[in-house]
C-alpha cells in the first residue's frame, strides 16, 4: 500500500521542512491534524505562517496588477462576447486603461513591450553593417 507521496518527490518539498518524528512541540495538539502536518519541521522560522504569508503576498500582487497591468484587463474585456452586461465592463476596462496610461501606470509593460519589439527585430551583427 502506498501511503502518500514520499517527502522530496514533489518540487515544492524543502529538505529542512521534511516531517520528522517528534518535531511538533505544541502541547495543544489538534486531533484533525494530519500525519504530515503533525510531524512537520515547525522549528523552521516562519513555517507556521505559510498560509497568511501566501494570501497576503497574493493580495498585494493582485492589487498591484490591477493598478499596473490595465493592458491585461482591457484585452480580457475586449474578448468578452458583446452583450448588454459586458458593455459597461468593456467601457470600464477601456477607461481604466486610458486613465492608467495618463497616470503613467502602464510604463513598465509599455517599456518591456517596446524593448521586446526592438529585440525581436534586432539583426545579426554582420547584416547590421
Amino acid at each position, binding site marked *: 500500500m502506498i501511503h502518500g507521496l514520499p517527502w522530496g518527490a514533489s518540487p515544492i518539498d524543502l529538505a529542512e521542512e521534511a516531517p520528522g518524528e517528534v518535531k511538533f512541540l505544541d502541547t495543544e495538539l489538534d486531533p484533525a491534524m494530519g500525519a504530515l502536518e503533525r510531524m512537520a519541521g515547525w522549528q523552521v522560522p516562519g513555517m507556521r505562517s505559510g498560509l497568511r504569508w501566501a494570501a497576503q503576498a497574493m493580495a498585494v500582487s493582485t492589487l498591484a496588477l490591477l493598478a499596473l497591468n490595465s493592458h491585461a484587463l482591457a484585452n480580457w474585456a475586449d474578448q468578452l462576447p458583446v452583450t448588454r452586461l459586458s458593455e459597461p465592463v468593456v467601457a470600464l476596462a477601456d477607461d481604466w486603461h486610458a486613465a492608467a496610461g495618463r497616470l503613467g501606470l502602464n510604463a513598465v509593460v509599455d517599456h*518591456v513591450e517596446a524593448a521586446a519589439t526592438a529585440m525581436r527585430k534586432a539583426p545579426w551583427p554582420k547584416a547590421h553593417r
Partner: protein
Amino acid sequence: MLFPTLAFHGFFILVFCCNWLLRRAGDWRLIMLLVASWIFYGWFDARFVALLLLSAMLNWGAARLIVAQPGRRARLWLIAGVWANLAILGFFKYYDFFLHGVNSALAGAGLGIGLKTLDVILPVGVSFFTFQGISYVVDVWKGRSEPARLLELTFLMSFFPHLVAGPIVRPGHILPQLRERPWLSRGAAATSLVLILWGLVKKTVIANELGVHLVDPVFNHPSGHSAGDLILAAYGYSIQIYCDFSAYSDMAIGLAGLLGFRFPANFNQPYRASSLQDFWRRWHISLSSWLRDYLYIGVLGGSRQTLLRTCLALFGTMLLGGLWHGASVNFLIWGALHGAMLVGERLWGLARPAGLPKAPVWLGRLYTFHLVTVAWVFFRAKTFGEATDFLGRIGHGQQGAFIALPWTVGMIALGLACQFGPPDAIQRLGRRLRAMPFWAVGLLVTLVLLVVEGLRGAGVAPFIYFQF
C-alpha cells in the same frame, strides 16, 4: 481556460480563498474544488464534464466490485475496468484514425465500400484522465491503493491543475492527502510561487516566441527556408516543446501546492540526459513511470524474461507510448524511434567489450539531445513524408531564406541553459522567497508578471499537450 490568462487568475484567487476558508470543512472543501474543476473543464467544452463524471463512476464501480469479490472475479472486474477506460480513449481518440485505415485498406483491395467516419471531437485531457482511471483500478486490485469513495475518485480524476495535461498523479500518492486537513508551510508556498512564475516565463516567453517567430513558419513552409533555418527550427522545437509542457507541469504543481496538495515532479532537466534511458527518467516522468509500471512490467513482463522478450516489451511500450500521444502514423514512428534506440542502448550495454573506455558524459549528452531532436521532427511534422522531407532538406544543405534572428536563437540558448543550471534551482529560489516579507514577494510577483505581459506579444497559444 488557460493558466496564463486573466480569467484564470481571477478563477484561481477565488478558488484559493474558498479552499482555505473550507480548510476544516472536510468533504465540503473537496466538493467545492470538484465544482471548480468542472467549471474549469467546462470552459473548454461543457459537454465533456459528463464524460469525466461517467469515467470516474465506471472506475469507482469497477474498484468496488474488485474489493467485494476477491480472487478470479476480481481479475475479471479489473479487466472490465481497464477495457472500459480503453474504450473511452479508443473511441474519442482513435476511432476515426482506425476507420480511415480500414477504408484505405478496403480501397486498396478494390472494394468500393467505405465505412462512415464520425468526426469525433477529442475531449481535452482524455488521455490523462483515462490513464489515471486505469492506474486506480489496477492499484486497487494490486492492493497498492485503498479504494476511494466516489467523491474522492471523481475529485482525483477531475482536479483542475492536472486535469488537461498532467502530471498523471497516482491514487496512492493523492488519496491520503485528501483525507488529511490541508496545511501550507511558508516554504511550500514560496516554492509553489516560484514554480508558477517560472512556468509562466517558459510558456509565454520562450515557448511562444520560438513557436511564433521560428518553429511554425519554418515547419509550415520548409521549402522556402535554408538548411540553417531548418536546423535551428528543429532545435527550436526541442526547446519549445520542453518549455511548453514543463511549464504546464510546473504551474500545475505550483497551483496544487498553493491549495495544499503535493504533486510529484514531472521533468528533471531532460536535455542533460546522457543516454536515452536517462532521458526517459527525466522527461514526462509521470507518463514514463506509468508506462513502465502498468505496461512494460504489468502487461509485457518487464526485464525478468528472455532478452528477446525484454527487447520486444521495451519496443512495444515505446510504440504504444507514441500512439498515446495521438492517432497519427508520425507518433507511432516517434515511439518506434525511441523504442529502437532504447533497445539498441540495452543491447550495447550487454555486448560492450569490458575493456572499452566509457564515453565522456558530454558526448552522451550531445548524442542524446540530437537523437531526441531528430525524433521531435517526426512528432512535429504533420505526415511521415513531411518529416523525412524536412530532414532530407537539411541533409542536402538547402539554400533559401534565413529568418532566425538573435532573439530566437537567444531563446534556444536560454532553454538549453535551463538544462544545465543547478538541479535544485527552484528550491533555492523558494528559500530566498520564503525569507522575504509578504509585501516584497507580492511586488516581486507583480514585477515578473508585468515583464511577462510585456514580453508575451499578442495572446497565448494553447499548450501543445492539450491536444493529447
